[in-house]
Each structure stands twice: as C-alpha cells, then as structure tokens.
C-alpha cells in the first residue's frame, strides 16, 4: 500500500542523519560515565574502577574550578549585555540614515568580522593590541599607555568582551533592523504631524517596535550563560591572565586533554552539560512565554 511505502521512505531518509547523531552526540554522552570512574584508557570503560561522586566533589573543592565558573558567567553575561546594547543602538541609528547606498555600505563594513574565524581575528588582535601596535600608537597621541591589553588580568576580560562586540554587533543588529523596517510607516507620519521630534519618535515608536525582539534575544541568550567563547579565549589568553580569563571550556581542555585527567575533565564538562541543558530549557520556556517563540 502507498501509505506504508511512503512511511518506509521517510525512515530510510532520516536513518543516516540519525545514525550519525547517535554516533557523535549520544555515544559521547554515554561515554560521560567516566566522570564517575577513575578512568584509565588502558583498562577502558569496563575495566576502570568506579569512584562514585569523587570527581564531582573534587571539582567543587578546587579553587581553580570555582574561579573558572565565575569567569565564564561574568564574561558570557557581559558579552550578551554589551553586544545587545551595541546592536540595538547601531540598528536605531542606522535606521535614521536616509541614503540606502550609504546604509548598505556601512552594513557591508560591519558584517565582515562575523565571517572570519577567531584564529584569524586573534592573530589580528594580537598585532594591533601589541605594545607597538595600532591601538597603543593611537592611545599614545593622548599620552596614554602603553597598555598590555592581553597581559593584564584586570583588562583581559574586557578585551574579550569588546573584541566580541567588534565581531558580532553588526550581525546581531540584523534582527533589529528587520523589526524596524516592519514598523508601519504611518505611525511615524502621524507622529510628525503631531510635532514629534526625532528622539520622541525613537522613544515612542522605534523602541517599542523592536522591544519584542529584544526580549526574545535576551531570553534565548540565557541558554548561553556558560558559553563564554572557547575559540576566542583559547586564541587570545596566556597563563598570565588565567585568573580572570580562563573559562570552563578552556579549563576542561587543559585538564582533560592536555594533562590527561580524563575523568576530572569529563566531570567538569558533564556538570556544564547538565546546567546548560537546564538553562536552555529555561530560555526556550521564557522565549515562548514572553516572546511567543517556537523553535519549530
């Protein structure tokens, strides 16, 4: 019968994708049981001794680990806030530019860093932030510096936050620009007839018009509170700034893969996985409740 053959075809289509997802997502999840073992690669998962919650408890006792959790949340949260503010401000201002061609050119300039990898951008940042780099040359005009941007623990997190703004603010602005263009132009015309000035139109029409999108983006970013940006930090940090710049992902990489403490690395990673899963659940719930968003 046709119905059965149709269903069979759908199963056949979905099978390869499903198999790969199981192999590279669910199998590693099962492998995470080594978080509760004293894992020895020579003995394998079956032969390694079980230690219960020892690794998890040990993780909580490490001062490094606590610092790393704090750094992660701090950097990730500040990134979200600063990128969001910069993107909204940029979208609102760009919306005031009347010449379409200029508007497009500006967009072309600010979107570019989004498409470049953090390897490339970190290479560039290391050059311009060096002691004799572009930025310190510029600051020297005002008699400031030289500042060791990548070598001072109190400055380093802000270098991370603002370089992320550089890469992403333009691209994040796309959703706000789209929301702005979908605002009914007659609203502005009526406001002008009533004598509203530019600031008033922005305050009473544009901002309320994009508020739902801002709420949505804010809700969805809850799920990213533990993602402070591995690629970026990995390519910019050094032991001098571990105290403020080391994040969960870089820490797990070092203790797990470089030092070979597989079980401890897995325990920290698993803790992150579980918390992230809860946070993403919360973020989708909040996005659905406050912004009426459904992922599919």
């Amino acid at each position, binding site marked *: 019968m046709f119905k059965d053959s149709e269903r069979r075809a759908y199963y056949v289509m*979905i099978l*390869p994708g*499903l198999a790969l997802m199981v192999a*590279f*997502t669910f199998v590693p999840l099962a492998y995470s049981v080594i978080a509760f073992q004293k894992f020895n690669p020579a003995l394998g998962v079956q032969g390694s001794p079980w230690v219960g919650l020892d690794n998890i408890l040990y993780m909580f006792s490490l001062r490094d680990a606590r610092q790393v959790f704090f750094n992660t949340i701090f950097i990730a949260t500040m990134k979200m806030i600063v990128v969001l503010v910069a993107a909204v401000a940029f979208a609102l201002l760009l919306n005031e530019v009347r010449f379409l061609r200029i508007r497009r050119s500006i967009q072309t300039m600010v979107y570019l860093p989004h498409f470049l990898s953090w390897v490339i951008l970190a290479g560039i940042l290391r050059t311009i932030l060096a002691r004799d780099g*572009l930025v310190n040359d510029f600051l020297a005009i005002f008699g400031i510096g030289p500042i060791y941007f990548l070598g001072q623990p109190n400055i380093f997190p802000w270098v991370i936050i603002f370089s992320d703004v550089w890469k992403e603010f333009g691209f994040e602005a796309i959703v706000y620009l789209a929301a702005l263009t979908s605002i009914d132009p007659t609203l502005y015309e009526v406001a002008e007839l009533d004598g509203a000035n530019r600031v008033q139109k922005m305050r009473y029409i544009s901002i309320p018009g994009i508020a739902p999108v801002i709420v949505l983006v804010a809700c969805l970013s809850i799920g990213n509170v533990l993602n402070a940006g591995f690629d970026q930090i*990995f390519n910019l940090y050094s032991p001098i700034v571990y105290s403020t710049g080391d994040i969960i992902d870089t820490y797990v990489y070092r203790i797990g893969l470089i030092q070979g403490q597989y079980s401890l690395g*897995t325990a920290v*990673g698993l803790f992150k996985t579980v918390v992230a899963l809860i946070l993403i659940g919360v973020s989708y719930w909040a996005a659905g409740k406050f912004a009426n968003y459904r992922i*599919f």
Partner: protein
Amino acid sequence: MVFRSTTDRIVDYLITTLLILVGVTALLPLVNTLAISLSDKAAVSGGMVGLWPVGFNLDAYGFILRDDKFWRAFGVSVLRVLLGGALNFVLTVMTAFPLSRSTRAFPARDLFMWLFVFGMILNVGIVPWYLTVSGYGLLDSIWALVLPGAVPIWSVILLMNFFRSIPKELDEAARIDGATPWQLLWSIYLPTSLPALATITLFSIVGHWNSFFDGLILMNNPDNYPLQTYIQQLVIADRPALHGGQAALMAQISNNTLNAAKLFVAMIPILLIYPLLQRYFVRGIMLGAVKE
C-alpha cells in the same frame, strides 16, 4: 514629505558620519594586517606601519607561494570544505524532508524532531567526545573533520521550516500522479528551495573553513592540519610569552610580516564569497524565523 529643519538635517549628517566612522573602524584592524604583510620587515619591527605599507614589497607572499606546508594545509581545508559541505548538504536535505511532513504522513516525526533538537542543545563535553572519535579510529583521517558535524541540526530546522512554507497544492498534485517521497523531494521541494539551500550550503562552507579546534585535537600529525589549525599553531601558539626575553621578541617580530600575510591569504576565500554570504546569511536569519 514633511518639511525638515536645518537642525534635523545636521543631525542626519552627524549620524551618518558617526556610522561611517564605526564601519571604517571595524575594518581598520584588517587594513593594518594587510599593510604589515606588504611592508618591509625592518619597518614592521620598528612599529612604523599603520594603515599604509612602509617599504612596499611582496616578499612575504612570495615566501608563502613556495611554502609547501602552507599549501598542504590549504589543501586539507579545501578538501574538508568540499567533502564536508557535500555531506552536510545531502544529510540536511534527507533529514529535513521527513521532519517537514505531517504526523499523519510520518507518525514518528515528532519523536525524531525531539531527538534532533535534544541532540542540538546537548553540549557534550570535549573529553568524552574526543574519546569517542578516537575510539572510532578516525584520528588523523579527513573523516574526523567531516563526520562528527555531518548533520548540522540548525540547518535542518531552517530547511524544514522552509519546506513547510511551500504550498501543499504542488505536493498533492504530484502525489495523485503517484510520485514517491524521493520524487517529491527531488522534483518539487529541492527546485523550490534554492535560496534556503544556498543559505545552508554557505553556513557549512564557512563553518568548515573556519574551524580549527577539531583539527588541533584530532590530528596528531601536523601534516594533516587544516589551514586554520596550521595558522593557529604558527601565529598564536608559537608566540613566546608576552613577557618573554628580548631574543624571543626579536625572532617573533621578524615573523610578523609573514604571519600577517598568512592571515590575509586565509581570509581570501571568505572575502571572495562575501557578497553571497551577506545576501544569503541575512536571508537565512530571517528564514529561521519562518513558522507555520
């Protein structure tokens, strides 16, 4: 048009100027890198190069042209883009299509959908992930770079939403003529989804070109590094500590011109497809929002 006052127009110019400045500033770091790559080594180590090359020459690029290691890494990257892009494309289409069907046509649809979304938000730790991939015997193989991410679930959702927005009439007409699901997909859904397909393809090209970390941990032999990993090792990992000795500093500086040139060459493929990226990524972001 409503009358606009002089102040209003001045504010217009101020905003436009400000934004052009912001745009130019966003590009200055790239211009600086390009200028360094085209400058004389001595000028670079003297910290004299700003936005314009000093002592213009193409030595660094000439050196790269003869650098076998660079081109081998470049080749690995091209290979992973081609192979990984093709895999991503086929698997995204084959996964998205059944998921776009109604539960009446494909009863297990909701179950699979939840599985894939769970797989997407599940962020498994790097250690068990590494142990899994190495357990499959994929270390030092090109497949290690393309198989683990072969099903980009975000692209699947994007394409699924696009498929669902295609009018059902076409589908029903073909079905009455006895078309199988494969024929429906091939002759109706794919031809009408070209913009969405372009978007997901560009997503995977950029993703593959830009990733370095899988290459770093899954390739033991540096000969197998993709370009981003090669550059990462060269430009970033090999740098002496910031407060290293004077000799180390001098050695590093003499390499700055060459490193800048390598960074720039690695950017070229992205710059070449940038017009497409701008068009389709923006569209893709909007497509992601398309709902039933």
